[in-house]
């Protein structure tokens, strides 16, 4: 199934990545911090990704 066509797949994935990122960054330093950044970066990457592909789905 196409991830973008599913109503909840990507929102749930991004939400989980954000929450895990928020918590993991608190637990420790170093690699934990980096995992935290990646989790929250998913929000910005998602916006960038759909912005770049906006022509493809214009209806």
């Amino acid at each position, binding site marked *: 199934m*196409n*991830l*973008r*066509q*599913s*109503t*909840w*797949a*990507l*929102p749930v994935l*991004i*939400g*989980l990545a*954000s*929450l895990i990122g*928020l918590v993991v*960054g*608190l*637990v*420790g*330093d170093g690699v*934990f*911090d980096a995992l*935290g*950044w990646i989790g*929250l*970066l998913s*929000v*910005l990457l*998602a*916006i960038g*990704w*759909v*912005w770049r592909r*906006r022509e493809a*789905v*214009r*209806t």
Partner: protein
Amino acid sequence: MKRNTLRVWFQVHRWSSLVCTLFLLLLCVTGLPLIFWHEIAHLTGGEPELPAATANARPVSVDTLVARALRARPSDVPLFVSWEEDEPRVTYVTTGPRPDASNDEMYVSTFDGLTGTAIPAPQFNEGIMWVFYRLHTDLYAGLPGLLFMGLMGLLLVLAVVSGVVLYAPYMRKLPFGVLRGGQRRLAWLDWHNLTGIVTLAWLSVVGLTGVINTLEQPLVGLWQQQHVAQVLQEPPGVAPPRRPAASLQAAIETAHARHPDAIPSWVGFPGTGYSGQLHYGIFLRGDTPLTARLVTPVFAHATTGKLAGSVTQPVWMQALLLSQPLHFGDYAGLPLKILWALLDLVAIVVLVSGLVLFVRRGSRAQIEARIDARMEMAR
């Protein structure tokens, strides 16, 4: 979903958002520089470079530093002593006209704890950052202002929840993140849906922890009454001493000996609201971002120096202590702060696009037609 249910959620989303949007815009705009408060203070001389330490230099006693701070401000009483987290040589001694002085009345003397010399540093409660801070927290209105902002935060949570409910029927037939450009209302709606749904988790966490932070004063007061008072056993109605006689340095060392793995984070003097009227509250921290926030208090009598014991924090105090980093984003280095700032900007897009959608909502008939269309799409 029934048509009437959808309409109710529309109303909930519209009104909860409308009431809080302007305040949330204020919070987003003032919060942006506050994310970098530490860095800005550093750049503007708030944390000057320290001279290199000579070998086998021994730290100066905290009592000496407090005495020096008070000699420069003889009518003040001591309030707090704290240490810079990543440079414990930097020791802050906060004084004020009364033990229960407000933030505005406090004065911070900064010392090099190794040489005992005073370091000239700007005050935290002056300048543009303090204006941002007051606008962000209490609107210059004290506790009522804080609680009002907390209420706005609760409305944000309601707006987020109702927004998620409305997202589903609208996006049923559309791909995630569809962006149909142009000047049309639809283009604003697409951006509102996209930015709203991707910031759902972050905005909920920052919103809820912000609400919890507005409750700090009442929660700490409750903690004092319900937990700390039992340990301290102070006579009722007693006034705090203006110049506590017991050595604070000795009390810190005794507390540290009890918890050898913990690091002293800050000390509250008697009457400041954290350690009764007659005691020092010595707050010890761990060294991970998590345990650095979950401080353990140890209390020592400020006249006799006798240790009164420590208190395990109830769950709701731990929630309060953890709400601070989760709201400020200051627990995983500069990259997290930059992400916090970018997400704050995305949140501004959510708010502005929502406002545009309201302004361009059209006639009642058009709104009803859109609800019909949404019912149709959700089928």
